[in-house]
């Protein structure tokens, strides 16, 4: 297992380098220019100066190599400096956003907490809801509970979040006035009252995202349970006189969880990616909103860095999922 992990990690390096190049080229060749953000009242000579100051008119390979150096050399040094208080990165040029002229990494770090709290808790809640629903739906297949579960999952899966989000705002903010429609990122949880405010402002975005996640995972859980319930070992367990509780929760559930755990692990990078639409609707302004904003503004350094970080996370969690798989099912061996 260890050699497998090391081999995979080594293999990830050229993969990621290739991904970074592809992303860079894609982002660069995509139509749109940071110039479109400059109002027409600014004369052409001034526009040209602005673009020059951004470094946006350098040849593409120069910008790519510079980005590689900044991402793999300068930014880690900055991280080391901020942890140990050293000054290795003094005077080095960091990756700077074209929109705000400030270091991209600082903005990402600033955005991380709200994305992790909102999108992360939506994911956890989604999983907590989905697993029991999936189990019971499969155990009582075609019962009214199963039908209802299927119906809700279908709604959660097919109705887009920009619709459910706005519906929730209209019902709970505009008409009932229970929850705020706008997420306050400056809120600091210090006491019970501010904690309740935090819960209130998280309620709607988390509900929207949790519904979506739960509907997805509950379907996986259900089908995986159904596969296992029909197996011979289940009949054997029952024939041995074991209680239904033990049969379902011990024998069947454990075996059914293997593929579901993989799906859950593979979904974790999407938490970091944020929820572009939901974040925009509730103005959570996390990583998803950051990305879409940067795309709209043709802020290439920001788009490039963010997408590359997502790529790293996806490669990493794929590896983690593979390793987990081997640990959960002793029959699977990679060596």
């Amino acid at each position, binding site marked *: 297992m260890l050699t497998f992990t090391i081999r995979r990690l080594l293999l990830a390096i050229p993969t990621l380098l290739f991904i970074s190049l592809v992303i860079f080229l894609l982002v660069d060749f995509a*139509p*749109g*220019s940071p*110039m*479109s*953000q*400059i*109002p*027409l*009242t*600014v*004369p*052409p*000579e*001034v*526009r*040209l*100066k*602005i*673009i*020059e*100051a*951004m470094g946006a008119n350098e040849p593409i390979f120069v910008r790519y190599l510079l980005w590689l150096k900044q991402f793999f050399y300068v930014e880690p040094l900055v991280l080391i400096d901020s942890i140990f208080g050293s000054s290795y990165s003094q005077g080095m*040029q960091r990756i*700077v*956003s074209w*929109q*705000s*002229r*400030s*270091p991209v990494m*600082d*903005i990402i770090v*600033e*955005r991380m907490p709200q994305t992790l709290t909102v999108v992360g808790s939506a994911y956890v809640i989604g999983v907590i809801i989905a697993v029991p629903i999936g189990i019971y739906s499969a155990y009582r297949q075609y019962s009214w509970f199963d039908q209802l579960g299927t119906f809700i999952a279908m709604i959660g899966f097919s109705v887009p979040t920009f619709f459910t989000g706005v519906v929730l*705002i209209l019902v709970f*903010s*505009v008409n009932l*006035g229970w929850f*705020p*429609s*706008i997420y*306050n*990122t*400056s809120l600091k949880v210090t006491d019970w009252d501010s904690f309740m405010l935090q819960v209130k402002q998280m309620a709607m975005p988390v509900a929207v995202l949790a519904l979506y996640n739960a509907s997805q995972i509950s379907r996986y859980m259900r089908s995986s349970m159904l596969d296992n319930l029909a197996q011979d070992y289940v009949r054997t367990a029952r024939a041995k006189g074991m209680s239904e509780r033990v049969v379902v929760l011990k024998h069947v559930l454990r075996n059914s969880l293997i593929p579901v755990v993989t799906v859950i692990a593979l979904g974790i990078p999407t938490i970091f990616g944020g929820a572009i639409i939901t974040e*925009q*609707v509730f*103005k959570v*302004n996390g990583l998803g*909103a*950051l990305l879409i*904003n940067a795309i*709209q503004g*043709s802020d290439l350094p920001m788009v490039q860095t963010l997408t590359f970080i997502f790529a790293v996370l996806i490669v990493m969690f794929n590896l983690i999922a593979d390793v987990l798989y081997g640990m959960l099912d002793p029959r699977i061996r990679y060596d």
Partner: protein
Amino acid sequence: MKLKTALLGAAATLAFAPAAFAERGADGNVKVLYSQAVSIMNAYLSSGTKDVEVGSLVLEPLAGFDQDGNVIPRLVTEIPSVENGGISEDLTTITWKITPGLVWSDGTPFTSADAVFSYQYCTDPAGGCAQAARYEGIEKVEAIDELTVKITWTAPKPNPFTAFVGGTSPILQAAQFANCLGAAAPTCTEQNFKPIGTGPFMVTDFKVNDVVELAANPNYRDPAKPAFATMTVKGGGDAAGAARAVMETGEFDYAWNTQINPELQVQMEKGGKGQFVSAFGTLVERIEMNLTNPSPDLPEGERSTAAHPHPFLSDLRVRKALSMAIDRALLVEVGYGNAGQPTCNLVPAPATFASPNTDCIAQDMDGAKALLDEAGWTVGANGIREKDGKPLKILYQTSVNAVRQDFQALIKGWWNELGVDVELKSIDGGVYFGGDPGSPDTFQKFYADVEMYANNFDGTDPEPYLAQYLCDKAPSPANGWQGENVNRFCDPAYDALVAELAATRDMDKRGEIAIRLNEMLTKDSYVIVPLVHRGRLSAHSTTLGGVVLNTWDSELWNASDWFRIK
């Protein structure tokens, strides 16, 4: 009756409330929502309206503009003029006298050196200053003494209110930005996010593209202002969501640029928690006619250039007929409601420079048809007009935008009725306005017969705006497809008149010339077909008092006068 009582009530609160609550910080927190989040507080490094406006809460210019476009003093004792000796007789210098005793929010004195520094900061060639146009034509800026700034122009300047006037050319604190000149400008993150200013507020927390937390400036020049102790400027979402937060849920006190369709405006106003305010600047949605041939049959480099005149749009009668077929009042009703007015002018304001022309307002379909008949375009077999065997077929492009697509559809309907075959094209704004010379879809390249967009001019003087239509400002391969004379309009008489405008100092005379220039482009030639004079639409809560919408300067220009209606 209801409206009358409401107006009376509003008038009464306006009259009495400021006097009753005139104490700094007495009204707690005010929440402002910008649907485009703020990226930076330094207007010199961003041309985005949202950044300039929120930045103006902290950084101030020497003078600003009021809601009518008049120059008003901010950090100076009076507005210089030829009469008071502030502007030299030959119009080559302007001298500003800074208010004595003025201090920055950190308590240090504000001096003329700060103004000189701001000029150096923005004109440094390596800095990429977004507002460099404000400082064009300056020979030098000097500090005569601690409180006197003198600007010398290279040539007589009839409108000297560009440098240090308006939210786009604020004064930076020399001490804070000393190490941020030139190429170092973008590296000064702390300074750009938390500048020290003279404005009513100062930044306490800045989260990029998310939220700006501000607190009242303890050293603000008016001890009774601002009434609010803190201000929160949240960003993100869209115009409809922003309007809803003020008009329906009441979570926010002020929402910027809530440009939503008229139907939704009426619906939201029923919420009763807020009201929309609109004001008109110089923004005009228009159709531009291509006077050169955009045909894809021509070789690249000759398409849409002066080498090939347009096969039919070079005929004035065709252009005029296309304009006559449009019902501008209906366009306003569909797209903008209270935030738009039909117009026939490229320069719709200020009053001195606006032509009284209203010829185009009434739709005249029959007249338009007659005009095309007269021009030799007869209706062919399938209802499309033809001349010499060529059909009258137009490619009509604009950017992707709900209102613009509605306009395209309506105008296509009218032109079809006229017997014109219309093909519509919509291009992503990032590409259309991106100015990339490699892309065939920029508005400057204009590979279409007609195109639609909106443009305005900065400040109150239309001279640079009208000068965009000089012969040599036409985008072409020679200048990398830059320039805003997208029509490739070229009239020696127009060029001569622009030169005359630049040399004219008398305001009334300048107004006359500007009106003449505007009419040469619109009423006389129909090269530009103005459609809608677009206003700014914002929303504020019924409990927020003192809001005066201003389109000539930052929208938050008088935030120091805002107060809570109790």
